[in-house]
């Protein structure tokens, strides 16, 4: 009986983990301004109702 080597399993996971990790890194980096942005500005004034 030929058993699957744990190395094959690790390599298979690595193939998908690499692009996934890169994508995660990019997204987290892009979301940083959300936490570093200053105090939120006041909400915009109401749009007047059409006459």
């Amino acid at each position: 009986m030929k058993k699957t080597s744990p190395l094959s399993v690790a390599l298979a996971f690595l193939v998908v983990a690499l692009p996934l990790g890169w994508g995660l890194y990019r997204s987290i980096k892009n979301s940083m301004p959300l936490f570093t942005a200053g105090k939120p500005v006041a909400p915009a004034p109401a749009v007047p109702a059409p006459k």
Partner: protein
Amino acid sequence: MPSFLDRARTVASPGFSRWLVPPAAIAVQMCVGEIYGFSVFNIPMTRAIGITKSVPEDWTVAHVVLATYSLGLVMLGLSAAFLGKWVEREGPRKTMFVSSCCFCGGLLVASLGVRLHSLAVVALGYGVIGGIGLGLGYIAPVSTLVKWFPDRPGMATGLAIMGFGSGALVGAPFGVELMNHFKTATSVGVSETFLVMAACYFVMMNFAAWIVRVPAPGWAPEGFVPGSHSGKLITTHQVVADEAIKTPQFYLLWGVLCCNVTAGIGILAQASPMCQDMFGVTPVVAGGFVGLLSISNMIGRFLWSSASDFTGRKAIYVVYFLLGCVLYCLIPFSERIGSVALFVAATCIIISMYGAGFATIPAYLRDLFGTVQVGAIHGRVITAWSMAAILGPQLVTYLSSYQREHGVPKNEAYNTTLYIMAGILLVGLVCNLLVRPVDPSHHLADGGAPEAALPKS
């Protein structure tokens, strides 16, 4: 078609590790999930002629979205619904290979369409041909994983569908990097980007087709006794797809998925403008918020669905609907007190449960109908997604515009919509609570041997 692709050639030999199947499933789903990140091409495709800005001969964003994203999702639902039984018969390897040919071939045709500046060719490529690839690539890994992990079906489907959620995280920046590389004074670089993406995705998807296997008949994980994961809703019987659609359970789960997705997709589609209108943040900051939602969407698929193995599927959907309802009602409150943190936390949890709704449904189907044609049944249920993809964004866009036109301040223009979304979740909750075990008259007659239901090829 070469015999290497046949189902019989993919039956795992003794000693094969089932842990090779999740990476195969994630790889395929990550590639076809690229559609979630397709919006990065919207603006460049509307400047294919004008390059730096749109000119009258250029396409509009609405036309591009219709020809690619919308048509692709409709074809996903249709191909999953109509080809589900073929997927079960031919097995995951052939399906993944055909999916890669359609999805990547569709990208090649779309590339030609951009070069010729023909929206019809783009629609045929990405929307129709690519959409068929999407449907096949979406259901094949899910049904295979459910069969490999009878002891943890929620975790298994969570893993696979997490891959689809990650498609935007990888596909969107990948597309942007490639367009930046290829753009010149005379080209926005979209056509070349599609070519490179087609090649990369083809390799990735066929890597998955190469390593995927189906379990041998009668195989079970070590120490697993069928029926040991007891629960009123977990059957040891089998129901075929044609019989499943005659049961009320099928339509209740269709309603569960439709309500869950309608509510979530409404937020996703409007996340950036909602954040800007409610808190006055800049588009860049709102873009970061959208990124956070993508991460929550992906992680929620795995975590919540895995948790359903312990709580049961019905109970976890009660959590999705009730907690979701409370969180939707909290969003207007977060705006009133000016708390961005509360807004981000509430929306991230909502979107994590939106993703989880997708990921848990195949395990729920497996509980009720068995594994024999779970892929085909899943394919038919996800037509609810196509319906929700139209309902959700339309509802949010129409209602918020209506509110603004009637003098509601733009930071409060989403409140009514959010309360309506909370109501939709309550409808989903009722559908879920009505789910009961399938009547035995629908069970497969021979005592439920899965092999008996596989169509003879």
